[in-house]
């Protein structure tokens, strides 16, 4: 009975619990058992909150909370702050920190009856595309254990793809929800910037970070999206507007008459053949379903990666300054003689990994007097041009589409010493972060190497529902919601 429960979708799970065919505690326990069984292999979870999960499941069973996802287990990326549950952001510098408060989305999920199983692995402070920059070791891809489940949110994607949880929460600064979804055959959405509260999301790059859902089906993702989205007065950048009708769009899935723009710039050299083939098939499928497909040029997308690697590290260099050993987390070198400044320096030297240090230095340099205009200032101008590319495109099309990432899951160790190769994994996902619009990765089959391929849909600000409409249409036409049935190696 246990393996069966872990293979259900979120919708199916919630229905069984609501119908009293199974209790939420049984569902939680089945997943906790599955985690105990395979997490040693996947390294998807950094911390398992057995007590918290069972307590919440009991509340659901007692009828204290209800809703379309009541009793459904979830894997929470460790960059989201949880009261009384360790939160490390994948870094040694926060090892042992027990937060005194909950993120807004954690409160919302609790109120919706969602059962958080634990905190998932990630690249340190969400800086990476493979989880190899986690201070706690890389997570593994359930499709092939020698490969990455993507990053930074590889722990959540591995957990969802490996049936450790039907739902996951990721955060996406440059693709950290979508790229892991693409390489694990799962669905991942970066909502409109400001659509989901950032209160309690440990900041990497404040103007780009956005939390969002991971799931095995488009409808499951939409239901979770609807739970976590909506205005939060504790986040000044939160948008005070109605949540787009994502669930209705996912249930509907009708793309007839929709204008779909294929981004011309995201093809050609560097794109794996197997990825290109599946992507083009998916575009043809949408056309077959009645969508009007056109090619669209977004000339400034070519500069997105460069702009991103100035803006994100600049903000990160400031956001990560607070890890100074004074108030919480790691403290190194406090021998009674060392000054506060010496302890700060020793702690940061010991507590941050190489990639985090690389980005702090990059950002510090980009913001320095005399360089600001040439780097940070210029990058902001590029950001404006990219936003204009999107706005221009959306005058003629309803959504833009592209491969989510140029290749299928790469092998662990393959790119870890080559930062530029690693950065290319986010080539197609970064523009939406710079613009602030929503974007989704939905599976579109397997490449000839037997690994999943992600199809990216990008929509205008606050038109998140369009993602789900396109995603659901594609999912139904290709049966991609059953793709993960092929994951049987665990």
């Amino acid at each position: 009975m246990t393996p069966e429960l872990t293979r259900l979708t979120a919708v199916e799970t919630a229905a069984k619990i609501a119908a009293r065919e199974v209790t939420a505690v049984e569902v939680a326990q089945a997943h906790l058992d599955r985690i105990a069984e395979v997490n040693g292999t996947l390294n998807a979870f950094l911390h398992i909150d057995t007590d918290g999960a069972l307590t919440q499941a009991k509340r659901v069973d007692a009828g204290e909370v209800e809703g379309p996802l009541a009793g459904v287990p979830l894997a929470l990326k460790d960059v989201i702050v949880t009261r009384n549950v360790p939160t490390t952001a994948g870094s040694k510098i926060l090892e042992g920190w027990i937060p005194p408060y909950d993120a807004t989305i954690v409160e919302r999920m609790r109120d919706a009856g969602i059962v958080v199983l634990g905190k998932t692995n990630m690249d340190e402070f969400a800086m990476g595309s493979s989880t190899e920059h986690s201070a706690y070791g890389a997570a593994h891809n359930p499709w092939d254990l020698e490969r990455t489940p993507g990053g930074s949110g590889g722990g959540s994607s591995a957990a969802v793809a490996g049936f450790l949880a039907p739902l996951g929460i990721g955060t996406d600064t440059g693709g950290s929800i979508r790229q892991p979804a693409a390489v694990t055959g799962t669905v991942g959405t970066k909502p409109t910037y400001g659509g989901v509260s950032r209160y309690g999301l440990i900041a990497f790059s404040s103007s780009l970070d956005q939390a969002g859902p991971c799931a095995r089906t488009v409808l499951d993702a939409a239901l979770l999206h609807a739970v976590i989205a909506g205005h939060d007065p504790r986040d000044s950048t939160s948008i005070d507007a109605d949540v787009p009708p994502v669930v209705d769009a996912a249930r509907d899935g009708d793309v007839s008459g929709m204008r779909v723009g294929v981004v011309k710039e995201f093809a050609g050299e560097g794109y794996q053949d197997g990825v290109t083939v599946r992507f083009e098939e998916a575009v043809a499928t949408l056309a077959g379903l009645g969508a009007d497909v056109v090619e669209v040029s977004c000339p400034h997308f070519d500069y997105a990666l460069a702009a991103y690697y100035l803006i994100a590290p600049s903000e990160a260099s400031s956001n990560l300054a607070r890890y100074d050993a004074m108030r919480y987390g790691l403290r190194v070198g406090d021998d009674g003689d060392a000054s506060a400044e010496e302890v700060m320096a020793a702690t940061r030297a010991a507590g941050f990994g190489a990639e985090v240090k690389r980005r702090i230095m990059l950002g510090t340099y980009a913001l320095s007097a005399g360089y600001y205009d040439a780097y940070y200032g210029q990058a902001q101008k590029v950001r404006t041009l990219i936003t204009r590319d999107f706005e221009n495109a959306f005058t003629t099309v309803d959504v833009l589409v592209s491969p989510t990432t140029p290749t299928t899951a790469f092998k662990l160790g393959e790119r870890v010493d080559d930062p530029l190769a690693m950065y290319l994994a986010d080539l197609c996902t970064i523009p939406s972060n710079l613009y602030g619009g929503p974007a989704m990765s939905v599976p579109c089959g397997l490449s000839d190497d037997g690994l999943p391929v992600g199809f990216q849909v990008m929509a205008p600000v606050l038109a998140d529902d369009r993602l789900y409409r396109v995603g659901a249409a594609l999912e139904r036409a290709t049966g991609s919601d059953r793709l993960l049935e092929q994951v049987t190696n665990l």
Partner: protein
Amino acid sequence: MTTTLGAYDDVLDRYAPVLGLETHVELGTATKLFCGCSTAFGAPPNTQVCPTCLGLPGSLPVTNEAAIEFTVKIGLALHCEIATWCRFARKNYFYPDMPKDYQVSQYDEPLCTDGYLDVVVGGEAFRVEIERVHLEEDTGKSLHVGGATGRIHGATHSLVDYNRAGIPLVEIVTRPVQGTGHKAAEVARAYVTELRDVLRDLGVSDVRMEQGSLRCDVNLSLMPAGATQLGTRTETKNVNSLRSVERAVRHEVERQGARLDAGERVVQETRHFHEDSGTTSPGRSKEEAQDYRYFPEPDLVPLAPARELVEGLRATLPEPPSVRRAAFAEVNGFTAIDLEQMVNAGVLDLVGETIAAGASPTKSKGWWLGYLVGRANELDVEVSELAITVAQVARISELEDSGELTNKLARQVADAVIAGEGDVDAVIESHGWKVAGEDELIVAVDAALAAQPDIAAKIRDGNQGAVGPIVGAVMKATGGAADATRARELILERAS
């Protein structure tokens, strides 16, 4: 002081001073700038904190609307332009008392710009131009334990109180103030005094320099008289009383003048003011200055104060202190010079309160300006911090008017009250101070005349100028308890 008396005026005969003042004002909002924590002063350490003002991972700021309104009011009272759109910026530097290791401040987009404040010194009006008024968050407070002086040097460990972290702070920056000449120190003091009064009238801050809710940095440079190229300036930090503002300017004028005279150059640096000696010492020099890596704060949305809001606030502004003071002078019969003296000595409100407590305007002014300001200087404290209340001053003044105290006795009573001996009547009682009676006075007058027969003879011959020494002798004999006017009458009467 290492410099000689008079050096200040001597230096300013040859050099033109250029002043600049940066004033930090803690706003009196109920809650902090970016969270809901209380701003109340004096709570136990780290009891008024939350994830946001502690800078915990994941926390976010939300701007306190009241702080924006207070800042706009300050800008309007200082005749500034109010920005239609501006942003907060992050000022990045590592410091243990700064929870996020950056301060949310404003950089090139302040809320208020281009204003002025007029002050009068020695009958001469000076317009101090305001470059900018911006809003930022205060830092926490470090306490260094184990050292001799509470300074970091020699301390065994440090403690940090974050109650102050995140309290809204407004920074008011002047343009370089030129043309003050010998009045530089007084203009600096008059500006801070005037600013303090404006802020207090607005009700935006309790402006208590001794508690740090009003703090001042004094910039000063000298250039040869007649020159147009500004000299190198120093920035003297945390000058925390009106007197100190004046003293800091005097000291820097003298110190920089001495260097320039000796052919040395003034180093551009931050200096610390020492209340005890009235001197400054070097802090951080420009060469070691931080690069703050300012950039727009991405966790906050731009500020765009609506024009209706700004005009609504403009309509609520109180009348400027100058108007209020003119009315006060009119009612109480003070001249413009009286007014300026009282304002610049920082006693105008005290005089007003003393009048309200029952003393006459002339006596009230006389007590504060003629006696208590001097006592405060001797005791090295702000006049407002003297340990005597306006009610006590009014009571002493009343006893003086009724003839129960002579002026000399009254001053002795005031001194005793300031010394903490007790309330006015108790002090008089315990010292047995009372005006000498007629009989006692006659005895003293006769004795004094008998002791100096030659002077008595001069008086008899009609030499009124000879009365003085006899009055002095009578005062001495009565321990100051004699009414000098009555003593004079008796001397003339008894000598003949």
